[in-house]
């Protein structure tokens, strides 16, 4: 069932177009992540759904109800902020009770609902504290309780984890997913952090230049990025400029030459007759150890080791390849034995032809 629908949303600040004819449908109960670099229009989009800003044109529908011009305080939409935005002059209890009181909930009910909500974010004993006495993670959980106590259909998250350190970020991210199951809200989650988007999103909408570039599940967006921008933004990528496309495309694979004269095979693709870039994910690449060449299945590339970084879960190898400006990145996981490569040493790597994407 469709919960939220954005139709042709257009927003201008002065002469600057921030959101350009954006269309988006969010299904009931899903968590949709709006992912993009700063200035891509994701926060403005969220702000328009919350009613803090009005679109220049276009419409916002929540469950078949036109929402575009409804005042923010009359929308059944929750909003969680990056900087928590807790009321500093009110206790934790009063912060959570704020919305209930504004909605005229009877006094007898307020106490129970506030306590239940605080219990669901593990802050039951903190109701008498003031925001300044809590840690960042605790403050954000109070903010979640304050929003969820109203049981909104739709909850908007404006980079709520960005002010927290890495460990807390992941823990609270998972907590948000669990809270979503408990409270059964539909979520729109804005972030510039692809890991957060992967962790939280049922679907990810990658935004750039005021519009959605790609919309799909985390797996789809990661495995089949529609363009170099998405490939680069989500995860690590090697983007190699193509020098020329040649040879017949009659067979299943076609061969292309990248800068530096290296030949690479890709799956023939009728949709893209004139590609300009080749993309390979660093983690789909292996180091060639056994000299066992199978050029029907694999692409090969040889260069010299520029650096090897050990990151705990993997090795990241930067390889200087002739004719290519940026180091070619290879990420090796689950190495049973330590890698022994010294700087400048020649290295050959291989990856499956089907893992080679062209743009």
């Amino acid at each position, binding site marked *: 069932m469709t919960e939220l629908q954005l139709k042709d949303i257009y927003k201008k600040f002065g002469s600057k177009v921030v959101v350009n004819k954006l269309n988006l449908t969010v299904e009931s109960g899903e968590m949709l992540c709006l992912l993009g670099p700063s200035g891509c229009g994701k926060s403005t989009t969220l702000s328009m759904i919350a*009613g*803090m800003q009005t679109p220049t044109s276009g419409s916002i529908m929540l469950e078949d109800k036109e929402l575009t011009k409804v005042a923010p305080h009359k929308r059944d939409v929750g909003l969680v*902020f990056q900087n928590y935005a807790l*009321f500093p*002059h009110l*206790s934790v209890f009063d912060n959570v009770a704020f919305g209930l009181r*504004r909605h005229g909930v009877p006094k007898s009910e307020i106490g129970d609902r506030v306590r239940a909500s605080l219990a669901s974010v593990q802050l039951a004993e903190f109701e008498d504290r*003031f925001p300044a006495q809590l840690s960042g993670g605790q403050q954000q959980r109070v903010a979640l309780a*304050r929003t969820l106590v109203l049981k909104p259909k739709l909850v908007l998250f404006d980079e709520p984890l960005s002010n927290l350190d890495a460990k807390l970020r992941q823990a609270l991210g998972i907590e948000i997913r669990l809270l979503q199951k408990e409270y059964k809200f539909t979520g729109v989650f804005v972030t510039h952090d692809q890991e957060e988007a992967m962790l939280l999103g049922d679907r990810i909408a990658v935004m750039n230049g005021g519009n959605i570039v790609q919309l799909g599940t985390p797996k789809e967006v990661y495995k089949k990025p529609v363009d170099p921008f998405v490939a680069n933004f989500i995860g690590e990528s090697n983007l190699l400029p193509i020098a020329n496309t040649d040879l017949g495309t009659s067979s299943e694979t076609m061969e292309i030459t990248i800068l530096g004269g290296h030949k690479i095979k890709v799956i023939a693709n009728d949709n893209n007759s004139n590609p300009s870039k080749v993309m390979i994910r660093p983690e789909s690449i292996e180091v060639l150890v056994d000299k066992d060449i199978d050029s029907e299945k694999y692409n090969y590339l040889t260069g010299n080791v520029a650096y090897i970084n050990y990151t705990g879960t993997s090795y990241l190898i930067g390889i200087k390849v002739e004719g290519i400006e940026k180091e070619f990145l290879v990420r090796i996981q689950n190495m049973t034995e330590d890698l022994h490569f010294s700087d400048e040493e020649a290295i050959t790597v291989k990856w499956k032809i089907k893992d080679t994407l062209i743009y």
Partner: protein
Amino acid sequence: MLKRIPANWILLAPGIVILLLAFVFPLGRLFIYSFYKTTSSGAIEPAFVLDQYIKFFTDTYYLEMLWRSVYVGVIVSAICLVLGYFLAYGIARTKPKYRIPLLMLIALPLLTSAVIRNFGWIIILSKKGILNEILIKLNIIHQPMELMYTVSGVIIALVHVMLPYMVLVLYAVIDGMDLNLEKAASNLGANKFKVWWYVTLPISKPGIVAGTLLVFSITLSYFITPSLVGGSQVKLMATEIEDQTIQLLNWPFASAMGVILLITMLIVTSLYKKALQSKYEGANT
């Protein structure tokens, strides 16, 4: 030797010396003087008697004057608070490029001498002044209003003088407020008035307390405006102290009035602060 004096004390020293010589010492003299005796011939005799205080508190003329001073102070603070809050809020919520020019406009009166500003008010408020002329021409009133040499006139002129202080103090607090708090309140179901009432207003309370206390304490001892606009008809503590000191040369009585004014100010401000103290300000420390 110099090494053992901490740097902060060296920085404090000039200020402390000036404060001791120009404030603490004279204030001590004032206290001592207030217990001196004035003989029936007007001569001053060193003594330690409560004569001056008894004279003040047994004469309704002086008690009324004290009450009038406090009353003017409270009314001026209240009017400045309301007008100043609108101004400060309006400036803080306008586009950044307009804020500095608007603040300059607010602060501009502080750059002109208070005497000149008050002469301006005489021209505006007098019987044949600009205000009366305009109101009569517009048929709003038929008889000129008496504003010069009245409490109302003094209050109008004082509000004008004090308003910049109030605006500047309030602006600092309102401008420093996180706008997301207002957004959060609105998102939780508060309409514009309730956002202001439950969030903006309580958060701007430190500014309100500081601004009103500042305006109240300056007003209570302000001399030029009551003297020029109020004249001898509107007697306030400050103008009477001047009379007693310069005209009547009754320094002990003037001293006693000064002490009474100071203590009144301390009592009113501490009561006011206590009434507005809230839990969260304590919690933040």
